[in-house]
């Protein structure tokens, strides 16, 4: 073996050894002595990049997420499939739904810079909210008669108004579809009274929606009125895939291009 080859390999190895040693020293030094710097927050990204496809943003709770759907699509997924069948343009969906989300946390979510940017780019916005505000995991069955429900509703309507304002501020043009509530407890003993409360919420929500341009209230109450159990998942709260299909078809029939 050539002596010079070995010598140069050894030399290279020594160089790398020193380099890594410097790196190690730097890492330890920076970890302890490095001073934090102020990192500028992102400014509101104002420019909308030119896009070819159709952009859809879905906001809201577990219905937007698709909880209970065996296929995992939810009404949003089914709707997107239908849209893809009808148009040749590429469709881009941003699903920002969070399980168990209530109106106050959606209120916070729409204020985030990036969420705002997403809404800004959207051609269509889908919203489901309010179900968790009202039912609170079934607690509503106990206290729907009391005055509490009125205060809860007031807060909810307030949040809803704010959310719509925020969406319209970011994007004055996109069609917004607000999916109304259904009554999953309609078959239970207090079902009739509960329905009354749900109808009331829906009416008020529709009123709020109507006060904004191009915000469409999509009723779902009637879809689940008869044979509710055929359309509910085994938790008796979320829709199953059939239920989601019903909601998606209703929204699909409202779409215009």
């Amino acid at each position, binding site marked *: *073996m050539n*002596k010079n*080859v*070995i*010598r140069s*390999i*050894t030399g*290279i*190895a*020594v160089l*790398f*050894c020193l*380099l*890594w*040693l*410097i*790196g*190690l*020293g*730097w*890492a*330890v030094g*920076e*970890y*302890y002595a*490095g*001073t*934090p*710097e102020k*990192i*500028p*927050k*992102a*400014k509101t*990204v104002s420019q909308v*990049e030119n896009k070819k*496809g159709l952009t859809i943003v879905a906001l809201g709770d577990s219905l937007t*997420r698709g909880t209970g759907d065996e296929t995992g699509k939810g009404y949003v997924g089914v709707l997107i499939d239908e849209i893809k069948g009808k148009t040749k343009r*590429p*469709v*881009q*969906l*941003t*699903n*920002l*739904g*969070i*399980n*168990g989300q209530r109106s106050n946390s959606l209120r916070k979510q729409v204020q*985030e*810079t*990036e*969420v705002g*940017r*997403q809404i800004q780019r959207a051609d269509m916005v889908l919203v489901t909210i309010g179900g968790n505000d009202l039912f609170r995991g079934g607690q509503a069955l106990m206290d729907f008669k009391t005055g509490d429900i009125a205060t809860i509703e007031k807060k909810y309507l307030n949040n809803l108004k704010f959310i719509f304002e925020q969406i319209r501020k970011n994007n004055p043009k996109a069609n917004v579809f607000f999916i109304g509530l259904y009554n999953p407890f309609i078959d239970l003993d207090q079902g009739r009274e509960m329905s009354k409360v749900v109808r009331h919420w829906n009416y008020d929500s529709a009123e709020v929606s109507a006060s904004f341009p191009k915000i469409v209230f999509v009723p779902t109450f009637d879809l689940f009125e008869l044979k509710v159990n055929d359309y509910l998942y085994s938790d008796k709260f979320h829709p199953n895939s059939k239920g989601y299909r019903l909601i998606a078809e209703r929204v699909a029939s409202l779409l215009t291009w």
Partner: protein
Amino acid sequence: MNKLIQNEMMKLIAKKRLIVIAIIIGVLVMLFTYAQYKQVQTQREKLGTSDWRTILQQQIVDTTNRLSSSRITDEWKKQLQISLQQQQYYLDHDINPSEPGAPTFMRIFLENSIDLFIPLMVMVIASDLVSSEHSLGSIKLLLTRPVKRWKVLLSKYLTLCLAISLIIAIAGILSYLISGLVFGYKGWGAPILTGFNVTETGLNTSEVKLMGQWKFLLMDFGLVWFVSIVVGTLSFMLSVLIRSTAAGMGVMLASLISGAILTNMVSSWESAKYFFMVNLRLTDYMKGTAPPIEGMNLSFSIQTLFVWWAVALFVSFFVFTRRDVY
């Protein structure tokens, strides 16, 4: 001394181990590059966009949803919360956490190979450095020369350190060149955030620093090098103590793998943090993920590894200079 090192280096090169290691690393990097490429593609198809902000926002929402599930363990929940806060921080400051490009791939490759893959490569060289002299019988020839025993061992040890430096360089260079073919060679200057502090309550972002990716990478390399030296020294010690190369390798392999398993389940066994193998993931401290056991941080891990290193080195020299060779 210089001559001795040259001699050891010659033996090492004649064995062609480094070439074998380079081939292994090359093949694996190709696999990882392809896997990464596929992942990026499916993500793009699924979301219909390659805009990183949209993808990151989607990841944040997905993590939030996973957090809301009641079936996850507390530790996993904490990990998720920390990564969630981190992602949100990146998004709020408009910084792409994984700027596409070969340097980012290199960084991810290093972070994932620090605790098992690179130590394994080091073992390939370290574990028979002394024991092979026994099995070949050449130890007697070596020790009959008019050179002190500790000098013989030291030359072997220094050669090991040089070889480790080379292995890490090979890993870096190969991962850069190969992944660059797919992801492009740019991205050295991309900003990276470091200095996230994981505390009891969650993620502390008050000491976050912004740095160029090249600098971050150099630090990662330094940490990987340190870990490799420690692992190399330990297997070096075993190769002095145990005459059979296979047995020494087996012991080392078992402890490395047990480390990978232990880190996933020791969070409630606090004294496990003094094992060297749970301290190997040094780059995670730079990135800011939750340590496997509460109370571990970079200086703790480095000190622990340093103690293991010093003990191993001492034992090797002590035993080697005193042992009867026959």
